[in-house]
């Protein structure tokens, strides 16, 4: 990331909480079901039918959240567009695959194929915004969004790049939900929602405008971000300390921790080993109980925390060290892992 800081200027979400709003802050919707679908805005309020006719819902959400985030940031056209997605438009992938199985490789619908290539999200945004600049897509399981964010911080070092539109987008179909249940990520449908292990699947669309300088629209600062692969506990903790030191902080300055604890024992055990030993348990908070689990859920974690910085306070169900949140000299961390393999650490501060 070099020594350049990155600033969040605008953000928007469409998720399992009320879309394009921060009602989740004071009055979050609480779910007791295994698969929770997105609450969509009325798409036709934002996209004329002939424009959105070929877009699946995930693309529509990406386009709308991007426009709202850019508007909030007072930016018309970004200098780069980067997306993270774990599965892309999986609904279209399934439709094309089913068509092959049913029609035997004949008379197949091209639109589904076209939209199943994961970079259809970044490309659709570029077409919508008429943006000819740097365009990239990361598809790496539970750190897909953080990889997109990391790339954002890399390219902000370039002279011509000042504002990056970066987002995390994922949808979940009932078929893929079933497969991921079999792979152990959450309970199977027949097992029903388990209050003791309340991990559930959600969907994500979160867009951010990240810039190389502070403006009146800035909500928070990304002080650092690191990606790791199968780190030992020692390496993970060392990396946290290095990130803190690089930005002139110590563990004592961390006032809030956000982790991907989601109610799945196998997942949660890893968090208790990684990083949490450095901090008080009472400043550890979760977001997947609000927004569900998905490959790009961390985008919602970042969204939520950026809103806390904007409001200078945390929701009543979270705890931070200090009563006033985001004061100078204080930082927060978002820690994430997927299967204990791909890991990320994001360091944030207020502005």
């Amino acid at each position, binding site marked *: *990331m*070099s020594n350049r800081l990155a600033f969040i200027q605008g953000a928007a979400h469409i998720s399992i909480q009320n879309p394009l709003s921060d009602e989740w802050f004071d009055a979050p919707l609480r779910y007791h079901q295994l698969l929770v679908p997105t609450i969509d805005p009325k798409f036709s309020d934002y996209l004329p039918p002939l424009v959105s006719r070929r877009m699946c819902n995930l693309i529509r959400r990406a386009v709308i959240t991007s426009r709202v985030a850019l508007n909030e940031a007072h930016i018309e056209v970004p200098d780069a*567009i980067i997306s993270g997605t*774990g*599965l*892309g438009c999986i609904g279209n992938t399934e439709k*094309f*695959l089913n068509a*092959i*199985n049913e029609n*035997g*490789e004949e008379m*197949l*619908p*091209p639109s589904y*194929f*076209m*939209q199943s*290539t*994961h*970079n*259809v999200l*970044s*490309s*659709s945004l*570029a*077409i919508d915004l*008429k*943006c*000819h*600049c*740097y*365009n*990239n*897509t*990361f*598809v*790496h*399981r539970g*750190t*897909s969004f953080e*990889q997109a964010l*990391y*790339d954002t911080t*890399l*390219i902000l*070092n370039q002279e011509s790049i000042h504002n990056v539109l970066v987002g995390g987008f994922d949808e979940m179909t009932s*078929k893929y939900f*079933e*497969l*991921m249940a*079999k*792979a152990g990520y959450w309970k199977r449908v027949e097992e029903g929602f388990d209050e003791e292990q309340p991990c559930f699947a959600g969907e994500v669309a979160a867009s951010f405008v990240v810039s190389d300088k502070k403006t009146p629209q800035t909500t928070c600062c990304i002080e650092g971000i690191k*990606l*790791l*692969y199968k780190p030992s506990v020692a390496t993970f903790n060392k990396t946290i300390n290095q990130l803190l030191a690089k930005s002139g902080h110590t563990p004592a300055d961390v006032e809030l921790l956000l982790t991907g604890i989601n109610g799945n024992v196998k997942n949660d055990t890893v968090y208790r080993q990684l990083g949490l030993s450095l901090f008080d348990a009472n400043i550890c908070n979760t977001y997947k109980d609000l927004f569900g689990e998905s*490959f790009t859920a961390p985008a919602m974690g970042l969204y939520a925390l950026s809103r806390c910085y904007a409001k200078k306070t945390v929701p009543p169900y979270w705890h931070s060290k200090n009563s006033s949140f985001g004061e100078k000299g204080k930082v927060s961390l978002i820690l994430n892992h997927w*299967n204990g*393999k*791909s890991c990320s650490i994001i360091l944030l501060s207020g502005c």
Partner: protein
Amino acid sequence: MNSGNEILVTGSGIITALGIGKDATWDALVNKRSGIAPVKYLQSSHGEFPVGEVKLSNEEMRALLHIRPLTTTVRSSLLGIIALEEALEEAGIKPSYAKERVALISGITVGGMDQTELVYQKLFETETYNDYIDLNDCGGCTEQIADYFNGFSSVSTIVTACSSAANALIMASNMLKTGEADIVVAGGCECLSIYHFNGFHTLMILDNELCKPFDQHRKGINLGEGAAYLVLETTEHAVKRGATSRGKLAGACNACDAFHLTASSPNGIGPYLAMKGAIENAGLKPSAIDYINAHGTGTPNNDLTEGIACMRLFDKVPPIASIKAFTGHTTSAAGAVEGVISLLALENNYMPVNLNFSQQMEELNFSPVSNPLPKKPLKYILSNSFGFGGNDSSIIFASNK
């Protein structure tokens, strides 16, 4: 960039329809021996379309890699491991070093679909195929590659269709320039699958004969498969490590056509900006480019757009060739496959030719290369990779001399 901080390629590996490794690849190129042939391994009913298959079954690749026969693997990962092994060996990187100090960035789009599509129904009906679930998505495949080598310091996956590997190289370059990493291995892998074979077929852009890049009568693509990786590090680090430079990554740029999800724009703005940006990033003028490794897929649309963009950028278009009629279109791996080939071209001072060309396109003022011998020593090669969604990347490779 001052010469103390250039980006060097200290190792590379490749596998395609031309064979395993750089020697086999180069031998095929200089002997003008195409790897395109009728479908053999892919279980598709569209046998009328020739392809650039790697001439090994999954079982044969597992045996080569000493992976136990019935281990759950996906074909793209096997291709990736073979290519990565050659790259790491050449660069003198041992697994323990890689785990601590080397980042991996891999481009792929098909993921594990080659297996998922074969067992899809069974995935729901039984428990026996559950291992395939974590290998279906793109990141799962990259992790399978990474785990064969006992891991890397970080592992990332880029998915931008046919420019994926090129974008992986660009990100690697950015990590090195910002001091985020000392060594990054970047490239891509992609195997054939019924899924995307049919996808391209439904877009009506496949040729049922050997493809004819930049030819007036071109009809479309021959799909291919393969993998390639390049080990990149700064001069300073390579010297400290005692590593040998095989060539340089002198400049790069990614731009977006922002026109249509599968077709490129009539004025080729994306390709033009990518090529222009790469040349400027390298601190060069267009006239410095000695040879263009074109994307040149052989579709009516791409070759026209790429050709027009070249004419717009260059006063005189330098020698240009597509090698797609050798390897087929290796999609997500193309940027790295053709990067390795570009470096071989620089090392051997030889320009791989554009096979199967007979008539110049009426809209263009140039024909692709048929004489491989350059008029002066090759110093800079521009390599293009243009993906679906108008994702356009250009990279400039430079010789050591």
